[in-house]
């Protein structure tokens, strides 16, 4: 451990705001990138499944 107390860890010898802002931004951007294709995939599968059901319902009416 490079710090004596948890308070030292947070203040980082006066550099705390710079360090934590950098890590916070990185975490936020990584999360946005990880979640974008996951939510996109969910939406896509839902839309396609709905379309498929409508198609099958339309065929059912015709026959």
């Amino acid at each position: 451990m490079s710090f004596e107390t948890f308070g030292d860890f947070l203040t980082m010898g006066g550099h705390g705001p710079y360090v934590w802002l950098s890590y916070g931004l990185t975490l936020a951007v990584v999360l946005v990138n990880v979640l974008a294709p996951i939510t996109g995939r969910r939406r896509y599968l839902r839309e396609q499944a709905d379309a498929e059901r409508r198609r099958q319902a339309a065929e059912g009416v015709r026959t």
Partner: protein
Amino acid sequence: MATLKEFWHRLGSPRWFYGISGPWLKILAGLAALLLGTGCIWGLAFAPPDYQQGNSFRIIYVHVPTAIVAQTAYLVMGCAGVVLLVWRMKLADMVLATVAPFGMWMTVLALMTGAIWGKPTWGAWWVWDARTTSMLVLLFLYFGIYALRQAIPRQEAAGRACAVLAVIGVVNIPIIKYSVDWWLTLHQPATFKLTAAPSMPVEMWLPLAVNVVGIYCLFGANLLSRLRLEILQREAGTQWVRDMVLEEAR
């Protein structure tokens, strides 16, 4: 050699690629979480402070990996561009389209964490230094490729135009790499070199190495994740995608 050629041929089928990429996505995502978690905690709490920069140097553990992967992502786009222009492979166009957002975000991160690091170290958020300026050019190249795809309605024409721009823009990558050697800059020289030992003690560079490997795993996982969605979207309506959609909905 024969298996390599077979692999190359199979890449022509997005459906085949979708099938084999599922397990790889899980492996890479797990490795990325493990390595980046370890590297960040190690770098934040356990690495010793720098004798000149104090604790602000800990920004290196997010700044350097994002800056490296931003350039690698561009090189991947350049390679995909060549493959698309020469062999007209469908998958190459999908790679070109899906790498761009990740690379753009990583360039934004590298520039922002660099600015935040610059304030306590150089006394300014931004300097028109050779390294920072060439990274800004990289960001504009990403913007350009993104905008070009939106501007051309025909998918095939858009892909080819993006491929040309991606290939031309690769010129900027060695400029970024050697900017700290060719010009007199404020930016510090490379931490890792292939030809020499790192200029840092091992307890400082090891967490950085862990994070660099980790971010490559993240890049791989994110590329596969976006690529798989892109494949499903472009192949919508084909029998295998319809079957898969019904399978997932059940």
